[in-house]
């Protein structure tokens, strides 16, 4: 104890304690705020539409209405099709966590079977775009990466950024990153136009062009970071941050060391 108390006025004590305190607060917060995992039991197996309806009544009807007719806070789902359900519920955006600006991507609340049943139920209400599993299955064969990149930069980059990292829209809304999206989800987003996104119908971007865009995005997702750490692929802001912190910081540290008189 005595040995310890000898160092209590050491000039490194205050910074050490500060770092320690920040670390403890940080870990406590991350442990305390960790999401609790919700498990969903297997459902009874009746007809798909009925199953879907049951899930809908349980998980969606409080906002979208008992017959999916919509309400004050949520749109009607009649005619949105299976693609919209697969996208919104499959990416965890629906059910919404809260009524903020925009539904965020998160862990889906339902499993794949339940989502499929929901999609079948909503599709049964009125015809709408279906899940494009068939269409995207050959994107590797039919798509063209370079052409997809050009289409992406022309139609998508103004919101989703040049490399699909996402970007800000007005009033707290945003275009999400497409780095975690599956080919089906990208296709579904283009044909259903979720949230602020416009619908890119087949006359604006042909199905083959859609496959090219998907192929380019998949290539961008797996593209290695050429030339060193990618710094988030968000342009020069992080580069400027790095030169002022690491770059100039390192050099000033060395300058201080060079100007220190030998003791």
């Amino acid at each position, binding site marked *: 104890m005595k040995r310890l108390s000898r160092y209590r*006025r050491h000039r490194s004590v205050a910074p050490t304690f500060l770092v320690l305190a920040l670390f403890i607060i940080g870990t406590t917060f991350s442990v305390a705020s960790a999401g609790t995992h919700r498990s969903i039991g297997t459902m009874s197996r009746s007809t798909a539409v009925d199953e879907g309806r049951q899930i809908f009544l349980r998980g969606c009807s409080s906002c979208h209405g008992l017959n999916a007719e919509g309400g004050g806070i949520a749109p009607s789902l009649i005619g949105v099709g299976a693609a919209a359900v697969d996208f919104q519920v499959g990416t965890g955006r629906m059910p919404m966590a809260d009524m903020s*600006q925009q539904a965020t991507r998160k862990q889906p609340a339902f499993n794949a079977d339940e989502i499929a049943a929901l999609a079948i139920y909503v599709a049964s209400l009125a015809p709408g775009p279906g899940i494009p599993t068939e269409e995207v299955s050959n994107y590797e064969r039919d798509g063209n*990466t*370079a052409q997809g*990149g*050009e289409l992406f*930069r*022309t139609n998508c*980059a*103004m*919101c*989703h*950024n*040049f*490399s699909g*990292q*996402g*970007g*800000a*829209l*007005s*009033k*707290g809304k*945003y*275009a999400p990153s497409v780095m975690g999206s599956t080919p089906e989800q990208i296709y579904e987003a283009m044909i259903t136009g979720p949230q602020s996104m416009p619908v890119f119908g087949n006359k604006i971007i042909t199905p083959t062009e859609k496959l090219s865009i998907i192929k*380019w995005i998949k*290539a*961008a997702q797996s*593209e290695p*970071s*050429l*030339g*060193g*750490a*990618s*710094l988030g*692929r*968000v*342009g*020069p*802001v992080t*580069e*400027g*941050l*790095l*030169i*002022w912190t*690491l*770059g*100039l910081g*390192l*050099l*000033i540290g*060395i*300058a*201080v060391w*060079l*100007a220190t*008189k030998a003791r």
Partner: protein
Amino acid sequence: MSVEKKAGALANYVDERTGAAKWLKKNLTKVFPDHWSFMLGEIALYSFIILLLTGVFLTFWFDPSQREVLYQGGYQPLSGIKMSAAYASTLNISFDIRGGLLMRQIHHWAALLFMAAIVAHLMRVFFTGAFRKPREFNWIIGIGLLTLGIVEGFLGYSLPDDLLSGTGIRIAEAILQAIPVVGSYLAFFAFGGPFPGELFIPRIFTVHVLLLPGIFLALITAHLMLVWYQKHTQYPGPGRTEKNVVGYPLMPVYMAKAGGFFFIVFGVTAFLAAVASINPIWLYGPYTPAQISAGSQPDWYMGWLDGLVRMSPPLESHLFGHTISWNILIPGLIVPGILFTGMALYPFIESWLTGDKKEHHLLDRPRNAPNRTALGAMSLTFILITLLVGGNDLLATHFALSINDITWASRFAIFTVPPIAFVITKRLCLSLQRHDRELVLHGRETGRLQLMPNGEFVEVHEPISTAKAWILTQHEQPAALEFPTEDSHGVRAPKGALNKLRARMSRAAVEQVAKPTIQDAKEIEHH
């Protein structure tokens, strides 16, 4: 013949023909003071040399042409895409030329470092008052270098003709067009027709690799010659006066230190270039006016200008059939004009306000010039706000904020926060002066408590060294300027309002906590 004799004979041979010995003897023993903050300018100088070296390498392969080509190089995701030769050759440098990407990245990191070091050096010179007489001209040269550096950096960023830099050129064109009356003509001349044309990249290439580097070399030489001639300033300390320079000789101490530091700067730049990607133009794609990307930002040294434009409200007026775009004109030209003119004239403004016409070779401790330090903090806060707004879209997405809120908050903050920073900094300086005074009169608090015989606890104070006390008390505390409002006959003095303003500003400038005098110290001893 021994080696020494041979070397001596050679030196003699050269000296007999050039007379260099006398000059070298005088200049190699020149003394420079030692402080880490004096090396910030060195960082700028060395990164400029790195820029020249890597820049020459890049010109060997860069094709500054907007001629359309079909890309067939090594980067597959762009294969078969139409692009300008400038962009294609930059892709070639990055992917198909050995060491090309590393050189490009060293060049760009060195450019960011060059500007950061210039700004850091500028802050050091400003806050220590190194710009005062006789160094006003060198300050102006420095501001010139800063301004040209911003232009040079922007042109370099624009050369590859990628989607990001093309967007930057488009904004530059808009700023040019916003100049009343002549704007659209100027833009037409610069681009040789409507935007983007085929002339702009070749033109800015010449400016980037020939014109501006030449001006840089000339200005840097003048900058250094003036430092050499006027001698370097030094921080106050025992034995240091306005008439001497305390430090080490150029040969061998600074030859080794500065030479070594050059390689360290090169090493750090090369290290950054090796581990961190910069300006990945292959991700941006080639420029076409039909495309735009979210999160288009300039390099950091232009970020403040972008921020000013982003926060500006949509003001436009129509006069005699002409549109005046105040929303671009004010943030893009008028505010930067005021900022840079004010910066360049600052040494003269300060000397006019304080009436200080003396030569200064000893630097100010920033706390001893509270008004100037507060003004500096105020300016930095202003620039920092604009810089933050330059990245408002990234702030919005990464901190879950609304871009509209950020814009509106910044419109108020740009007027209110800098003055608050001024007041806080000035108070901090005065508090630090008060602390210095305490330190000189009462010594250092040791944290040791002593129990007196009468039961009283007192903290033991240790007197500070004479050297330290000298540093804390050596500065001058001039009195405020005073101007008679009327002459001896009772006639109102001319320039009354101007003098009143000057007196008022001078009073603010000299506001100080009185430094301890001999009397103060003697009084303490009586206690």
